Protein backbone atom coordinates (compact mmCIF):
# COMPACT_ATOMS: atom_id res chain seq x y z
CA UNK A 1 0.00 0.00 0.00
CA UNK A 2 2.80 2.36 1.03
CA UNK A 3 4.68 1.79 -2.16
CA UNK A 4 1.54 2.37 -4.16
CA UNK A 5 0.85 5.71 -2.48
CA UNK A 6 4.46 6.71 -2.88
CA UNK A 7 4.26 5.97 -6.58
CA UNK A 8 1.14 8.05 -7.05
CA UNK A 9 2.74 10.84 -5.06
CA UNK A 10 5.65 10.78 -7.48
CA UNK A 11 3.13 10.98 -10.30
CA UNK A 12 1.58 14.05 -8.64
CA UNK A 13 4.94 15.81 -8.42
CA UNK A 14 4.21 18.13 -11.36
CA UNK A 15 1.17 19.38 -9.44
CA UNK A 16 3.35 20.12 -6.44
CA UNK A 17 5.82 22.01 -8.58
CA UNK A 18 2.99 24.03 -10.08
CA UNK A 19 1.84 24.83 -6.55
CA UNK A 20 5.36 25.69 -5.53
CA UNK A 21 5.59 28.04 -8.48
CA UNK A 22 2.40 29.81 -7.32
CA UNK A 23 3.86 30.06 -3.82
CA UNK A 24 7.07 31.52 -5.18
CA UNK A 25 5.17 33.89 -7.47
CA UNK A 26 2.77 35.22 -4.87
CA UNK A 27 5.42 35.59 -2.19
CA UNK A 28 7.96 36.98 -4.66
CA UNK A 29 5.61 39.69 -5.86
CA UNK A 30 4.58 40.58 -2.31
CA UNK A 31 8.17 40.51 -1.21
CA UNK A 32 9.18 43.13 -3.76
CA UNK A 33 6.04 45.25 -3.35
CA UNK A 34 6.11 44.86 0.43
CA UNK A 35 9.75 45.96 0.52
CA UNK A 36 8.99 49.10 -1.47
CA UNK A 37 5.95 49.81 0.70
CA UNK A 38 7.90 49.05 3.87
CA UNK A 39 10.78 51.34 2.93
CA UNK A 40 8.46 54.24 2.15
CA UNK A 41 6.39 53.71 5.30
CA UNK A 42 9.52 53.13 7.37
CA UNK A 43 10.99 56.45 6.23
CA UNK A 44 7.67 58.20 6.95
CA UNK A 45 7.70 56.57 10.35
CA UNK A 46 10.83 58.57 11.24
CA UNK A 47 9.44 61.91 9.97
CA UNK A 48 8.33 64.07 12.85
CA UNK A 49 5.94 66.15 10.79
CA UNK A 50 2.34 66.15 9.57
CA UNK A 51 1.50 63.31 11.95
CA UNK A 52 3.16 60.91 9.50
CA UNK A 53 4.94 59.00 12.20
CA UNK A 54 1.70 58.34 14.05
CA UNK A 55 -0.26 57.31 10.97
CA UNK A 56 2.46 54.83 10.03
CA UNK A 57 2.64 53.58 13.60
CA UNK A 58 -1.10 52.94 13.59
CA UNK A 59 -0.85 51.04 10.30
CA UNK A 60 1.96 48.86 11.59
CA UNK A 61 0.24 48.20 14.90
CA UNK A 62 -3.03 47.26 13.21
CA UNK A 63 -1.34 44.90 10.76
CA UNK A 64 0.71 43.28 13.48
CA UNK A 65 -2.12 43.05 15.98
CA UNK A 66 -4.57 41.22 13.73
CA UNK A 67 -3.91 37.70 12.41
CA UNK A 68 -3.07 37.38 8.76
CA UNK A 69 -6.01 35.04 8.25
CA UNK A 70 -8.36 37.88 9.19
CA UNK A 71 -6.70 40.28 6.74
CA UNK A 72 -7.10 37.88 3.88
CA UNK A 73 -10.74 37.28 4.81
CA UNK A 74 -11.38 41.00 4.85
CA UNK A 75 -9.81 41.49 1.44
CA UNK A 76 -11.38 38.45 -0.21
CA UNK A 77 -14.79 38.15 1.47
CA UNK A 78 -15.64 41.57 2.92
CA UNK A 79 -14.38 43.93 0.21
CA UNK A 80 -16.81 42.45 -2.38
CA UNK A 81 -19.64 43.77 -0.20
CA UNK A 82 -18.44 47.30 -0.94
CA UNK A 83 -18.03 46.43 -4.61
CA UNK A 84 -14.36 45.42 -4.75
CA UNK A 85 -14.21 41.88 -6.07
CA UNK A 86 -10.72 40.44 -6.44
CA UNK A 87 -9.46 37.16 -7.89
CA UNK A 88 -7.67 34.92 -5.37
CA UNK A 89 -4.21 35.69 -6.72
CA UNK A 90 -4.34 39.50 -6.55
CA UNK A 91 -6.23 39.30 -3.25
CA UNK A 92 -3.48 37.10 -1.81
CA UNK A 93 -0.69 39.29 -3.20
CA UNK A 94 -2.26 42.47 -1.84
CA UNK A 95 -2.89 40.97 1.59
CA UNK A 96 0.67 39.66 1.83
CA UNK A 97 2.11 42.96 0.58
CA UNK A 98 0.41 45.18 3.13
CA UNK A 99 1.07 42.63 5.85
CA UNK A 100 4.78 42.29 5.09
CA UNK A 101 5.01 46.04 4.41
CA UNK A 102 3.98 46.75 8.00
CA UNK A 103 6.66 44.50 9.47
CA UNK A 104 9.28 45.77 7.03
CA UNK A 105 8.41 49.38 7.87
CA UNK A 106 9.27 48.66 11.50
CA UNK A 107 12.58 47.10 10.49
CA UNK A 108 13.42 50.03 8.21
CA UNK A 109 12.45 52.64 10.81
CA UNK A 110 14.60 50.92 13.44
CA UNK A 111 17.52 50.86 10.99
CA UNK A 112 17.18 54.55 10.18
CA UNK A 113 16.96 55.48 13.85
CA UNK A 114 20.10 53.45 14.56
CA UNK A 115 22.18 55.91 12.53
CA UNK A 116 23.71 58.36 15.04
CA UNK A 117 22.20 61.84 15.12
CA UNK A 118 25.61 63.38 14.44
CA UNK A 119 25.55 61.90 10.94
CA UNK A 120 22.46 63.87 9.99
CA UNK A 121 23.83 66.92 11.72
CA UNK A 122 27.06 66.80 9.76
CA UNK A 123 25.14 66.26 6.52
CA UNK A 124 22.84 69.17 7.37
CA UNK A 125 25.76 71.41 8.26
CA UNK A 126 27.30 70.58 4.89
CA UNK A 127 24.23 71.59 2.93
CA UNK A 128 22.76 68.23 1.91
CA UNK A 129 18.97 68.41 1.63
CA UNK A 130 16.67 65.86 3.26
CA UNK A 131 16.62 63.59 0.23
CA UNK A 132 20.39 63.71 -0.27
CA UNK A 133 20.92 62.96 3.41
CA UNK A 134 18.72 59.90 3.18
CA UNK A 135 20.28 58.75 -0.08
CA UNK A 136 23.98 59.32 0.66
CA UNK A 137 24.34 59.24 4.44
CA UNK A 138 21.50 57.67 6.37
CA UNK A 139 20.26 54.87 4.16
CA UNK A 140 23.64 53.31 3.30
CA UNK A 141 24.40 53.08 7.01
CA UNK A 142 20.93 51.92 7.98
CA UNK A 143 21.02 49.28 5.26
CA UNK A 144 23.53 47.10 7.11
CA UNK A 145 21.27 47.07 10.15
CA UNK A 146 18.14 46.49 8.09
CA UNK A 147 19.35 43.66 5.88
CA UNK A 148 19.55 40.66 8.26
CA UNK A 149 16.08 41.08 9.81
CA UNK A 150 14.71 41.94 6.38
CA UNK A 151 15.84 38.62 4.96
CA UNK A 152 14.37 36.95 8.06
CA UNK A 153 11.09 38.69 7.31
CA UNK A 154 11.15 37.25 3.77
CA UNK A 155 11.28 33.76 5.26
CA UNK A 156 8.24 34.52 7.39
CA UNK A 157 6.46 35.94 4.37
CA UNK A 158 7.01 32.78 2.34
CA UNK A 159 5.70 30.64 5.19
CA UNK A 160 2.75 32.95 5.88
CA UNK A 161 1.82 32.72 2.22
CA UNK A 162 0.61 29.18 2.94
CA UNK A 163 -2.47 30.77 4.51
CA UNK A 164 -3.63 32.10 1.16
CA UNK A 165 -4.70 28.55 0.30
CA UNK A 166 -7.89 29.26 2.30
CA UNK A 167 -9.24 31.53 -0.43
CA UNK A 168 -8.70 28.87 -3.07
CA UNK A 169 -5.33 29.87 -4.47
CA UNK A 170 -3.64 26.65 -5.52
CA UNK A 171 -0.29 27.19 -3.86
CA UNK A 172 1.82 24.31 -2.67
CA UNK A 173 -0.13 24.02 0.60
CA UNK A 174 -3.44 23.71 -1.23
CA UNK A 175 -1.93 21.11 -3.54
CA UNK A 176 -1.14 19.21 -0.35
CA UNK A 177 -4.75 19.44 0.84
CA UNK A 178 -6.08 18.29 -2.53
CA UNK A 179 -3.60 15.44 -2.80
CA UNK A 180 -4.20 14.09 0.67
CA UNK A 181 -7.80 13.38 -0.33
CA UNK A 182 -6.53 10.97 -2.98
CA UNK A 183 -3.51 9.71 -1.08
CA UNK A 184 -4.52 9.40 2.57
CA UNK A 185 -0.93 9.38 3.84
CA UNK A 186 -0.75 12.75 5.63
CA UNK A 187 2.82 12.40 6.79
CA UNK A 188 4.03 11.57 3.32
CA UNK A 189 2.08 14.32 1.56
CA UNK A 190 2.69 17.13 4.02
CA UNK A 191 6.24 15.92 4.51
CA UNK A 192 6.74 16.71 0.86
CA UNK A 193 5.02 20.11 1.26
CA UNK A 194 7.30 20.88 4.19
CA UNK A 195 10.40 19.89 2.29
CA UNK A 196 9.44 22.15 -0.60
CA UNK A 197 9.00 25.16 1.71
CA UNK A 198 12.26 24.34 3.42
CA UNK A 199 14.12 24.18 0.13
CA UNK A 200 13.21 27.76 -0.75
CA UNK A 201 13.44 29.13 2.80
CA UNK A 202 16.71 27.57 3.86
CA UNK A 203 18.98 29.55 1.55
CA UNK A 204 17.39 32.74 2.88
CA UNK A 205 17.84 31.65 6.49
CA UNK A 206 21.45 30.89 5.73
CA UNK A 207 21.90 34.26 4.03
CA UNK A 208 20.39 35.99 7.04
CA UNK A 209 22.90 34.28 9.34
CA UNK A 210 25.80 35.29 7.12
CA UNK A 211 24.60 38.89 7.01
CA UNK A 212 24.14 38.99 10.77
CA UNK A 213 27.69 37.79 11.31
CA UNK A 214 29.01 40.27 8.80
CA UNK A 215 27.21 43.18 10.46
CA UNK A 216 28.40 42.32 13.95
CA UNK A 217 31.91 41.90 12.55
CA UNK A 218 31.79 45.31 10.87
CA UNK A 219 30.62 46.88 14.08
CA UNK A 220 33.82 45.92 15.86
Amino acid at each position, binding site marked *: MYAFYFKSLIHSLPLFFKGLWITILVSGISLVAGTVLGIICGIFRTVKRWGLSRIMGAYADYMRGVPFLVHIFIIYFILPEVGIQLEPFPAAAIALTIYAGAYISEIVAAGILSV*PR*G*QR*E*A*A*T*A*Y*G*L*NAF*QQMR*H*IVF*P*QAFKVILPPLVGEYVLLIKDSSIVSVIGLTDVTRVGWLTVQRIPEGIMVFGLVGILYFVICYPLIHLSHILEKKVSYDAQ
Partner: protein
Amino acid sequence: MIRFNDVNKWFGANHVLKDINLHIQPGEAVVICGPSGSGKSTLIRCINQLEPIQKGEIFVDNIQVNKRATNLTRLRSQIGFVFQQFNLYPHLSVLENVVLSPIKVKKIARREAEENARELLERVGIPDKADDYPSQLSGGQCQRVAIARGLAMNPKVMLFDEPTSALDPEMIKEVLDVMVELAVEGMTMIVVTHEMGFAREVAHRVFFMDEGQIVESNAPDAFFDHPAHERTKAFLSKIITHN
Protein backbone atom coordinates in the same frame (compact mmCIF):
# COMPACT_ATOMS: atom_id res chain seq x y z
CA MET B 1 31.24 88.90 9.02
CA ILE B 2 29.08 87.48 11.83
CA ARG B 3 26.69 89.58 13.86
CA PHE B 4 24.28 88.65 16.64
CA ASN B 5 21.63 91.19 17.64
CA ASP B 6 19.87 90.40 20.92
CA VAL B 7 19.73 86.69 20.19
CA ASN B 8 17.62 84.57 22.53
CA LYS B 9 17.06 80.86 22.44
CA TRP B 10 15.03 78.49 24.54
CA PHE B 11 14.92 74.69 24.71
CA GLY B 12 11.40 74.36 26.04
CA ALA B 13 11.45 76.37 29.25
CA ASN B 14 15.25 76.34 29.41
CA HIS B 15 16.54 79.80 28.42
CA VAL B 16 19.85 78.84 26.82
CA LEU B 17 21.00 82.02 25.06
CA LYS B 18 20.19 85.35 26.70
CA ASP B 19 20.44 88.60 24.72
CA ILE B 20 23.61 87.67 22.89
CA ASN B 21 25.22 90.51 20.99
CA LEU B 22 28.44 90.08 19.12
CA HIS B 23 30.21 91.17 16.00
CA ILE B 24 33.04 89.24 14.43
CA GLN B 25 35.21 90.84 11.75
CA PRO B 26 36.43 89.09 8.63
CA GLY B 27 39.75 87.38 9.37
CA GLU B 28 39.14 87.36 13.09
CA ALA B 29 39.73 84.29 15.24
CA VAL B 30 37.58 84.11 18.35
CA VAL B 31 37.75 81.56 21.14
CA ILE B 32 34.72 80.84 23.31
CA CYS B 33 35.15 79.16 26.67
CA GLY B 34 32.92 78.58 29.65
CA PRO B 35 31.53 75.88 31.88
CA SER B 36 29.58 72.89 30.62
CA GLY B 37 25.99 73.73 29.77
CA SER B 38 26.66 77.45 29.41
CA GLY B 39 25.47 77.47 25.79
CA LYS B 40 28.72 77.52 23.81
CA SER B 41 27.73 74.77 21.40
CA THR B 42 24.26 76.17 21.02
CA LEU B 43 25.67 79.58 20.16
CA ILE B 44 27.79 78.39 17.26
CA ARG B 45 25.14 75.92 16.08
CA CYS B 46 22.76 78.85 15.65
CA ILE B 47 25.12 80.46 13.15
CA ASN B 48 24.46 77.81 10.51
CA GLN B 49 20.94 77.22 11.78
CA LEU B 50 21.54 73.72 13.07
CA GLU B 51 19.48 75.24 15.89
CA PRO B 52 16.74 77.80 15.28
CA ILE B 53 16.54 80.88 17.48
CA GLN B 54 13.34 82.31 18.91
CA LYS B 55 14.27 85.99 19.20
CA GLY B 56 16.79 88.37 17.67
CA GLU B 57 18.77 88.40 14.44
CA ILE B 58 21.88 86.65 13.18
CA PHE B 59 23.74 87.87 10.13
CA VAL B 60 26.46 86.05 8.21
CA ASP B 61 28.16 88.20 5.62
CA ASN B 62 25.24 90.67 5.78
CA ILE B 63 22.65 87.99 5.09
CA GLN B 64 20.13 87.37 7.83
CA VAL B 65 20.16 83.65 8.52
CA ASN B 66 17.09 83.31 10.75
CA LYS B 67 14.58 84.22 8.07
CA ARG B 68 12.31 81.91 6.17
CA ALA B 69 13.46 83.26 2.83
CA THR B 70 17.13 82.53 3.48
CA ASN B 71 18.62 79.84 1.31
CA LEU B 72 19.99 77.59 4.04
CA THR B 73 21.86 75.36 1.62
CA ARG B 74 23.79 78.33 0.31
CA LEU B 75 24.40 79.66 3.78
CA ARG B 76 25.70 76.34 5.01
CA SER B 77 27.99 75.86 2.06
CA GLN B 78 29.79 79.03 3.21
CA ILE B 79 30.29 77.83 6.77
CA GLY B 80 32.57 74.96 7.71
CA PHE B 81 31.64 73.14 10.91
CA VAL B 82 33.92 70.84 12.87
CA PHE B 83 32.29 68.66 15.52
CA GLN B 84 33.71 67.37 18.77
CA GLN B 85 32.98 63.78 17.70
CA PHE B 86 34.21 64.39 14.11
CA ASN B 87 30.98 63.00 12.61
CA LEU B 88 32.79 61.68 9.56
CA TYR B 89 30.68 59.44 7.32
CA PRO B 90 31.94 55.96 8.31
CA HIS B 91 30.73 54.22 5.13
CA LEU B 92 32.68 56.54 2.84
CA SER B 93 36.42 56.76 2.24
CA VAL B 94 38.33 59.80 3.42
CA LEU B 95 38.33 61.22 -0.08
CA GLU B 96 34.58 60.66 -0.50
CA ASN B 97 33.96 62.31 2.86
CA VAL B 98 35.70 65.40 1.59
CA VAL B 99 34.25 65.58 -1.92
CA LEU B 100 30.62 64.65 -1.16
CA SER B 101 29.24 68.11 -0.49
CA PRO B 102 31.34 69.95 -3.06
CA ILE B 103 29.94 67.57 -5.70
CA LYS B 104 26.35 67.24 -4.46
CA VAL B 105 25.78 70.71 -3.04
CA LYS B 106 28.15 72.98 -4.93
CA LYS B 107 27.89 70.92 -8.13
CA ILE B 108 31.63 70.96 -8.70
CA ALA B 109 32.94 68.44 -11.23
CA ARG B 110 34.26 65.28 -9.55
CA ARG B 111 37.76 65.62 -10.99
CA GLU B 112 38.15 69.14 -9.77
CA ALA B 113 36.66 68.25 -6.37
CA GLU B 114 39.04 65.32 -5.95
CA GLU B 115 42.04 67.36 -6.94
CA ASN B 116 41.06 70.01 -4.44
CA ALA B 117 40.41 67.35 -1.77
CA ARG B 118 43.87 65.83 -2.22
CA GLU B 119 45.43 69.25 -1.85
CA LEU B 120 43.49 69.81 1.36
CA LEU B 121 44.49 66.41 2.75
CA GLU B 122 48.07 67.35 2.04
CA ARG B 123 47.56 70.62 3.84
CA VAL B 124 46.20 68.90 6.97
CA GLY B 125 49.11 66.47 6.84
CA ILE B 126 47.51 63.19 5.72
CA PRO B 127 47.92 62.98 1.94
CA ASP B 128 48.37 59.19 2.07
CA LYS B 129 45.05 58.44 3.79
CA ALA B 130 42.70 59.42 0.95
CA ASP B 131 41.52 55.88 0.30
CA ASP B 132 41.27 54.75 3.92
CA TYR B 133 38.04 54.63 5.87
CA PRO B 134 37.48 56.69 9.01
CA SER B 135 37.56 53.58 11.20
CA GLN B 136 41.17 53.00 10.10
CA LEU B 137 42.31 56.42 11.30
CA SER B 138 43.32 57.76 14.69
CA GLY B 139 41.19 60.42 16.37
CA GLY B 140 43.60 63.16 15.43
CA GLN B 141 43.62 62.05 11.81
CA CYS B 142 39.81 61.90 11.79
CA GLN B 143 39.56 65.44 13.06
CA ARG B 144 41.98 66.63 10.41
CA VAL B 145 39.86 64.95 7.75
CA ALA B 146 36.87 66.75 9.24
CA ILE B 147 38.71 70.05 8.91
CA ALA B 148 39.57 69.23 5.30
CA ARG B 149 35.90 68.41 4.71
CA GLY B 150 35.01 71.84 6.04
CA LEU B 151 37.61 73.62 3.97
CA ALA B 152 36.53 71.79 0.82
CA MET B 153 33.45 73.98 0.63
CA ASN B 154 35.77 76.97 0.46
CA PRO B 155 33.96 78.56 3.39
CA LYS B 156 34.02 82.14 4.56
CA VAL B 157 33.85 81.04 8.18
CA MET B 158 34.99 77.96 10.08
CA LEU B 159 33.22 76.97 13.30
CA PHE B 160 34.83 74.50 15.72
CA ASP B 161 32.94 72.90 18.61
CA GLU B 162 35.52 71.56 21.07
CA PRO B 163 37.56 70.01 18.25
CA THR B 164 40.19 68.51 20.54
CA SER B 165 38.25 67.41 23.60
CA ALA B 166 37.54 63.92 22.26
CA LEU B 167 41.22 63.35 21.46
CA ASP B 168 44.02 61.63 23.33
CA PRO B 169 46.54 64.19 24.59
CA GLU B 170 49.26 63.22 22.11
CA MET B 171 46.93 63.97 19.18
CA ILE B 172 45.73 67.36 20.30
CA LYS B 173 48.76 69.18 18.96
CA GLU B 174 48.50 67.86 15.42
CA VAL B 175 44.95 69.20 15.20
CA LEU B 176 45.74 72.51 16.84
CA ASP B 177 48.67 73.02 14.48
CA VAL B 178 46.31 72.83 11.52
CA MET B 179 43.96 75.30 13.19
CA VAL B 180 46.76 77.70 14.04
CA GLU B 181 47.86 77.68 10.44
CA LEU B 182 44.31 78.46 9.33
CA ALA B 183 44.06 81.36 11.72
CA VAL B 184 47.41 82.73 10.61
CA GLU B 185 46.26 82.57 7.00
CA GLY B 186 43.38 84.82 7.96
CA MET B 187 40.40 82.43 8.11
CA THR B 188 37.50 83.83 10.06
CA MET B 189 36.92 81.32 12.80
CA ILE B 190 35.03 80.76 16.01
CA VAL B 191 36.47 78.06 18.20
CA VAL B 192 34.84 76.64 21.30
CA THR B 193 37.78 75.28 23.26
CA HIS B 194 39.54 75.30 26.58
CA GLU B 195 42.98 75.12 24.96
CA MET B 196 44.48 78.27 26.40
CA GLY B 197 47.72 77.87 24.50
CA PHE B 198 45.81 78.02 21.24
CA ALA B 199 43.81 81.02 22.46
CA ARG B 200 46.92 82.94 23.43
CA GLU B 201 48.75 82.09 20.24
CA VAL B 202 46.18 83.02 17.60
CA ALA B 203 42.90 84.31 19.02
CA HIS B 204 42.09 87.97 18.57
CA ARG B 205 39.47 87.81 21.29
CA VAL B 206 38.35 85.34 23.93
CA PHE B 207 34.73 85.18 25.07
CA PHE B 208 33.69 83.74 28.40
CA MET B 209 30.16 82.35 28.50
CA ASP B 210 28.16 81.42 31.56
CA GLU B 211 24.48 80.57 31.90
CA GLY B 212 23.63 81.65 28.39
CA GLN B 213 25.38 85.01 28.50
CA ILE B 214 28.67 86.34 27.23
CA VAL B 215 30.02 87.52 30.55
CA GLU B 216 33.33 88.87 29.39
CA SER B 217 35.33 89.31 26.20
CA ASN B 218 38.85 90.55 25.82
CA ALA B 219 42.16 90.07 24.00
CA PRO B 220 43.65 86.76 25.14
CA ASP B 221 46.51 88.00 27.29
CA ALA B 222 44.34 90.49 29.14
CA PHE B 223 41.58 87.89 29.39
CA PHE B 224 43.75 85.23 30.99
CA ASP B 225 46.01 87.49 33.06
CA HIS B 226 43.46 90.02 34.31
CA PRO B 227 39.97 88.55 34.19
CA ALA B 228 37.46 91.18 35.27
CA HIS B 229 34.54 89.12 36.51
CA GLU B 230 34.38 86.84 39.50
CA ARG B 231 32.78 84.08 37.43
CA THR B 232 35.59 84.27 34.89
CA LYS B 233 38.19 84.10 37.62
CA ALA B 234 36.51 81.11 39.23
CA PHE B 235 36.30 79.33 35.89
CA LEU B 236 39.90 80.06 34.91
CA SER B 237 41.25 78.91 38.24
CA LYS B 238 39.46 75.61 37.65
CA ILE B 239 40.80 74.94 34.18
CA ILE B 240 44.30 76.05 35.15
CA THR B 241 44.50 73.65 38.08
CA HIS B 242 42.89 71.03 35.91
CA ASN B 243 45.46 71.35 33.14
